[in-house]
């Protein structure tokens, strides 16, 4: 016990030599400006806030109607049809997302290499990145309206291609970041054997980058399932087309069934895809991040 009392003062800053408090003015002004902007927007926006008071009651009614639709015996006559119809459109959404992701993957694969600083010369990297940035800024909806629907006509094909081209921007950008992060030593080793440039990419870069790139594809597939939903509203197929029709007709029991199916399928696919992603990236080993996928299991 005595040792505690007699211990010499720790080396380092002495009393009165404490670090100064950081200057807070930047944080204060930042928060103030944000607060002012938010308040200004809340006040000036042309929203009928009064309707908010009735909203919970109306929402409650609708939710009751929707749950009633879901809880009806799905084997009974009209409901079997409702479920199978909703399922059909959801499957179409999945198909659109899958093909869209694949098209995006194929198109973005070379783009990712062209946009990686450790692979391509500077001017090429710069140009590719700007092109990818522009593609990323164009929403799938616009691609569908402006390009795919006029050329391919109404239907899921136009939607899938819109999703595909829309995916190129993100996939290319994230893919190039993966490629830039590879360990340079294997690349150097392959180059040292006198391999040609393409061989260096194929045997030095690709084996390191591929697992994460494939994981990106899967991630994009999850996103495309959601992003494809709006395309139905303009006639490009998928769950969105039936959803907008049902909402227009206010068929709440069918809306309930459809939304229920959307949630179930999306959660299922997300979990499956998250598992596969973790397996691909972490190999067979236990991955700490996999906890998120297990939270629901």
């Amino acid at each position, binding site marked *: 016990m005595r040792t505690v009392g007699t211990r010499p003062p720790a080396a380092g800053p002495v009393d009165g030599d404490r670090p100064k408090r950081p200057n807070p003015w930047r944080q204060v002004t930042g928060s103030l400006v944000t607060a002012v*902007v*938010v308040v200004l*927007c*809340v006040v000036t*926006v*042309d*929203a*009928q*806030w009064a*309707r*908010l008071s009735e*909203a919970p009651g*109306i*929402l409650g009614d*609708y939710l009751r109607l929707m749950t009633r639709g879901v809880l009806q015996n799905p084997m009974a006559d009209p409901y079997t049809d409702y479920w199978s119809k909703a399922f059909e459109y959801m*499957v*179409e959404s999945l*198909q*659109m997302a*899958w*093909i869209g992701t*694949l098209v995006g993957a194929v198109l973005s694969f070379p783009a990712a290499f062209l946009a990686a600083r450790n692979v391509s010369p500077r001017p090429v990297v710069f140009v590719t990145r700007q092109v990818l*940035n*522009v593609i*990323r*800024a*164009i*929403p799938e*909806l*616009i691609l569908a*309206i*402006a*390009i795919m*629907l*006029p*050329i391919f*006509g109404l239907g*899921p*094909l136009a939607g*899938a291609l819109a999703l595909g081209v829309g995916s190129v921007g993100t996939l290319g950008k994230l893919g190039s970041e993966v490629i830039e992060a590879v360990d340079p030593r294997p690349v150097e080793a392959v180059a040292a054997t006198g391999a040609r440039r393409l061989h260096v990419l194929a045997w030095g870069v690709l084996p390191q980058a591929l697992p994460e790139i494939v994981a990106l594809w899967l991630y994009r597939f999850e996103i495309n399932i*959601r992003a494809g*939903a*709006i395309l139905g*509203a*303009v006639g490009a*197929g998928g769950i*969105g087309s039936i*959803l*907008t029709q049902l*909402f227009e007709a206010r068929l709440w029991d069918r809306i309930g069934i459809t*939304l229920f199916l*959307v*949630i179930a399928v*999306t*959660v299922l696919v*997300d979990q499956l895809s998250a598992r*596969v992603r973790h397996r691909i990236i972490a190999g067979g080993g236990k991955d700490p991040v996999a*906890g*998120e996928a297990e*939270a629901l299991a």
Partner: protein
Amino acid sequence: MTATTTVPAPGRAVPPKPRPPWGLYAGLIACAVVTVWAALGIEFTLAPLFSDLTRGREVVAEFFRPDWEFAWRVREQWLETLQLAVVAGSLGCLLALVLAHMASDVTAPPWMARTLKALLAVERSLPDVAWALLAVAVVGNGALAGILALFAFNVGVAAKLTAESVDAVDRGPVEAATAVGASAVQRAVAAVLPQVMPNFLSYSFYVFELNIRASLVIGLVGAGGIGQVIKTELSRFQYSHISAIVAVFVVVVFVLDQASAWLRRRLI
């Protein structure tokens, strides 16, 4: 010299070839099957690209004659889009910050964290357009529906991302706060919040950016903002109006994207 090169050192034989990765092959075959099935399902073909490219010529040609004056004429809708994004984003992120703390093992009991994470996963599985349709049905066309739809959409995204940051905080300060007898709220404010703040702010910018993009979608079903203009012009086949709006929109998103990437780099 010759002896060393011809006689292989004992124990340094060529390593055995790895087992063929059957799991990988099975996965690849499964992917191929799914691809064929999906391609058949949506009747995949690129033929129109070569034969029917001219079919969309009129529409595409209209797109190359943007009516810039129109993009300025709808300035109030542009402003509304920004307002929606700010209001829904800020309110959504504030709620998300609280929810994130309740959805992480670090700051909440495990049962609560688990349930909340599951609920958030369900909440996130609904696409933005479904929220917008629902909001329009409940409060009618207009900006309020847009705010509600974006709000619901934002809470899910921001809460998930922030909860993952909370999960990853350094446990040291948390333990220290517990050791001096801090309550759950005090612990969150003093030990967790300072650690997740930079990430949270960067997610907030990301959410704001998402909102601008999503404003097209939610407007298309009648929930206010610039998307509603597109909906009207689409039904009137005024493609030159749409193209002007789209061009401005792409520039705005592009600039926001760059600005928020810059801000996020500075924050983290």
